[in-house]
């Protein structure tokens, strides 16, 4: 089938992309003038110990050899052992990634709903109040840095007003649900732990909003522009000339056409969500992959940094593949 063909071709391309990412990440991690052993043992470690550690971590071998062994490891699903935690990096990713994924998905859902709604509302009410509001909201969204919005919201809603919980995924005194998928929301749903569900969701609101804000802004801008363009098309005049109500013209005829470019943007912003997660997770003490990578950086834990980055690149490519499939679903012309 055509779609299958398309997916296989895209998967092969994805392998190529990931190889490129691997090369870049490996080279950058290994050529920066920093000494991971020094970071690990401190500046005063005796030379014998330093040599021993170098040998143990495989840093005494030439760069090319290390690259080949890393590549072979990745192909076997082995991302190496973290210098810092002494556990296999893949194990660490499995432990931390669900929290990031939960945050990114919550942010995506929020930004898709809010962004599309804002975009449609401002296109339909062009140059009226809601349109101006959306414009200002969007400009703020793309121009305010994530860490600043995060701190500001924490200050207002947690510290001053105390209506939303503070950092972390759950309140400290709450027993987390049994770990099944690693996502608090899904796990507490599965185990029927309603208290944890409610608390987990409340904890998600602020970080998800902060993370999703700039994505909301770009989705709203794109949706507005594409909706305005679609509303000028002749098939919209046809729909109106049938005697269809304006609401239905927008919903049944314009929206699906207008969403085609929006879907592309959603895939791209998902990448920036994963990337923004590094900062958001730091601000909100969210125990996710972003924070894992950040902490890895601080002690020059290369395997952790490389593995984490590679994993995020993998997820990003996968999401964009899914987006392209949705694209084909929305637009019948893409299916030929």
């Amino acid at each position: 089938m055509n779609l299958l063909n398309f997916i296989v071709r895209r998967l092969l391309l994805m392998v190529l992309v990931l190889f490129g990412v691997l090369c870049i990440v490996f080279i950058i991690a290994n050529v920066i003038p920093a000494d991971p052993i020094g970071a690990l043992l401190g500046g005063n470690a005796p030379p014998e110990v330093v040599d021993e550690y170098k040998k143990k971590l495989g840093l005494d071998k030439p760069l090319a050899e290390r690259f080949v062994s890393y590549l072979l490891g990745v192909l076997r699903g082995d991302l190496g052992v973290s210098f810092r935690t002494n556990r296999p990096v893949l194990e660490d990713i499995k432990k931390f990634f669900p929290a990031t994924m939960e945050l990114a998905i919550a942010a995506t859902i929020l930004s898709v709903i809010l962004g599309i709604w804002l975009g449609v509302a401002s296109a339909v009410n062009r140059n009226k109040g809601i349109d101006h509001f959306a414009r200002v909201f969007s400009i703020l969204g793309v121009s305010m840095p994530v860490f600043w919005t995060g701190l500001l919201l924490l200050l207002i809603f947690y510290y001053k007003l105390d209506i939303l919980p503070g950092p972390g995924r759950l309140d400290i005194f709450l027993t987390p649900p049994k770990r099944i998928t690693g996502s608090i929301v899904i796990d507490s749903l599965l185990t029927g732990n309603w208290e944890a569900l409610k608390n987990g969701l409340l904890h998600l609101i602020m970080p998800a909003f902060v993370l999703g804000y700039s994505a909301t802004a770009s989705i709203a801008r794109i949706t507005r522009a594409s909706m305005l363009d679609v509303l000028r098309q002749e098939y919209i005049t046809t729909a109106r000339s049938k005697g269809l109500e304006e609401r239905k013209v927008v919903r049944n005829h314009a929206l699906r056409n207008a969403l085609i470019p929006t879907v592309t943007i959603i895939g791209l912003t998902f990448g920036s969500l994963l990337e923004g997660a590094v900062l958001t997770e730091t601000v909100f003490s969210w125990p996710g992959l972003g924070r894992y990578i950040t902490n890895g950086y601080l002690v020059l834990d290369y395997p952790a940094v490389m593995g984490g980055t590679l994993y995020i690149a993998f997820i990003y490519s996968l999401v964009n593949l899914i987006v392209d499939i949705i694209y084909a679903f929305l637009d019948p012309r893409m299916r030929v």
Partner: protein
Amino acid sequence: MEDSKLLSVRNLRVIFRTYRGIVKALNGVNFEIGREEFVGIVGETGCGKSVTALSIMRLIQQPGEIIDGEIIFDGTDLLKLSEDDMRKVRGKEIAMIFQEPKVSLNPVLKVGTQLKEAVSIADGIPQKSREAEEKVMDILDAVGLPDPKGLMNKYPHELSGGMAQRVMIAMGLLKKPKLLIADEPTSALDVTIQAQILNLIKDLVSKFRTSVLFITHDLGVVAEYSDRVVIMYAGNVVEIGDVYTIFRNPVHPYTKGLLNAVPRIGQREPLETIPGIVPDLVHPPSGCRFHPRCSKAMEVCSKEFPEMVEVEKDHFVACHLFTRGEKNG
């Protein structure tokens, strides 16, 4: 006389507010369409033909605006109706087909869905009902499309231009409207397909007793199919008459120019043209809008707007050559 007319457009003025200034697109348009009459509107690109059509449907979008006039359709002024009532008129009484059939159908919805939607609005039956489906199949058959069932499951990009226009005609005529507005329905089609589509429209409207407002710049098409012709220039109607009268005895200098610009088989001399270009409607010429291009322009032409006068029975013209004649006589 009032009631015998299906549609009368009186003193219709439409403007578009653009950054360049106000475009005076329609400057007091007047014409009538009788019952079961086929009326052709002819004029150059940008003379306001399509704006007239969209105004009748009240589908002029921002930044356009109807600022004055009356559109009396079957006894009611459409410009005074509420949006809800107007929607009913669009759903049931007036249908419209467009120049580019392929972009007039929604690319992401199946042909059947789009047709069933129209049936459901016109007849008030549920869109997913068996009845709606049967009605759609009947009309697809009536417009000469083979395999209606298979066609309903197709998307617009899978149709040819001619097929898409047949679908549009089907969509327009399934509600058996009193008036069909066809905005250059054949301009984007091959010549052979053009004739088929025109004959189809002609057959169906006489079957359903529908009046037609046919917009075109093709004088040949008008000569062959219309009962009456309305000639427009730069937002004004300049001449109206019976198709034979207009072609045998055109009186407005613009109409004469148009007819002389039609090539004839066997003609050896270079084709005649009307000098100049269509005026900028942000700053239209004063008085008669045609006067800068008119070979017979007089002093009064740049000062006063010519009123419509009847030069012979049912033959109207807006030109000072004749208003003066009337005053003198």
